[in-house]
């Protein structure tokens, strides 16, 4: 029988893959995609508990998380484009001005 634990475990696995992507990848576009994976994991968690508790609030929170993800993607991609204009590259290693 599939319970809430299975969904939580899956959501956590998705979250871990996303965090690993943020840490490992060099391309800024893929880092942004990994952040989308993390937000998806959060949504899955919210909706699994909403189902378990019979409470609609989890789904309403997920609506706001999706709104946030849309705004974040728009701003993030605009930043990537303006960085590409500035540097001619979308690699994280090339943006190291603040490195000590």
């Amino acid at each position, binding site marked *: *029988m*599939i*319970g*809430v*634990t299975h*969904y939580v*475990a*899956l959501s*956590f*696995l*998705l*979250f*871990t*893959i*996303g*965090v*690993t992507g943020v*840490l*490992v*990848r*060099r*391309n800024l*576009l*893929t880092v942004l*995609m*990994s952040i*989308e994976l993390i937000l*998806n994991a959060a*949504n*899955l968690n919210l*909706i*699994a508990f*909403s*189902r*378990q508790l*019979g*409470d*609609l*609030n989890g*789904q*309403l929170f*997920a*609506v*706001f998380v*999706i*709104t*946030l*993800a*849309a705004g974040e*993607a*728009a*701003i993030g*991609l*605009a930043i*990537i*484009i303006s960085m590409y204009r500035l540097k*001619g*590259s*979308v690699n994280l*290693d090339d943006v190291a001005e603040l490195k000590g």
Partner: protein
Amino acid sequence: MTAPFFFWFFAAVVVFGAVGVVAMRQPVHSALFLLLSFFGVAALFITLNAEFLAAVQVLVYAGGIMVLFLFTIMLVNIRRTAGQPFVHTQAGAGLLAGILLLAIVGGTVVASSRVRGLSDAGAAADPARLASTSITRNVTEVVNGKKVSTPVTEEVAGNSQAIAWGLYRDYLLPFEIASVFLLVAMIGAVVLGKRTMERVD
């Protein structure tokens, strides 16, 4: 909760897509794997009685965000980066941190699944509660020349309608703030993305 086959199948799709996002060298391939993962998550939402959110997931993520990503990938010249390594210099440390996170949170999930009640799938609430809500409104009518308002409670059916009532009644202020947030994000994206204008003298 649901038929185990659907969960395991779509869980496998989601994890396969997510691993593909991280492991693919070309950003276009990553984006297509991300699309696969989004569709898998939408299917899992359906197994969790969240039909409205499944539709929103497909429309917003697979429709809107994915188009934004693909446009950006096309705008940015990725051929220039083709020969270089696709993971950055601290990739080993990043992978190690990921594995440590897997161990820590995985251990927590396994430990908490032993707690009674959480792992008990039979204790899941009635799914009908997610698809209906009761609303109370005042119905005003004229009786003998006087206005009389009586509260009437009625049930609305359907996941979308239940979410609409929650969104427009209980979460009205956050909903309005979200609309302002989207406006700010849109203006910000336009300002950040547009070329700097040459001054015309």
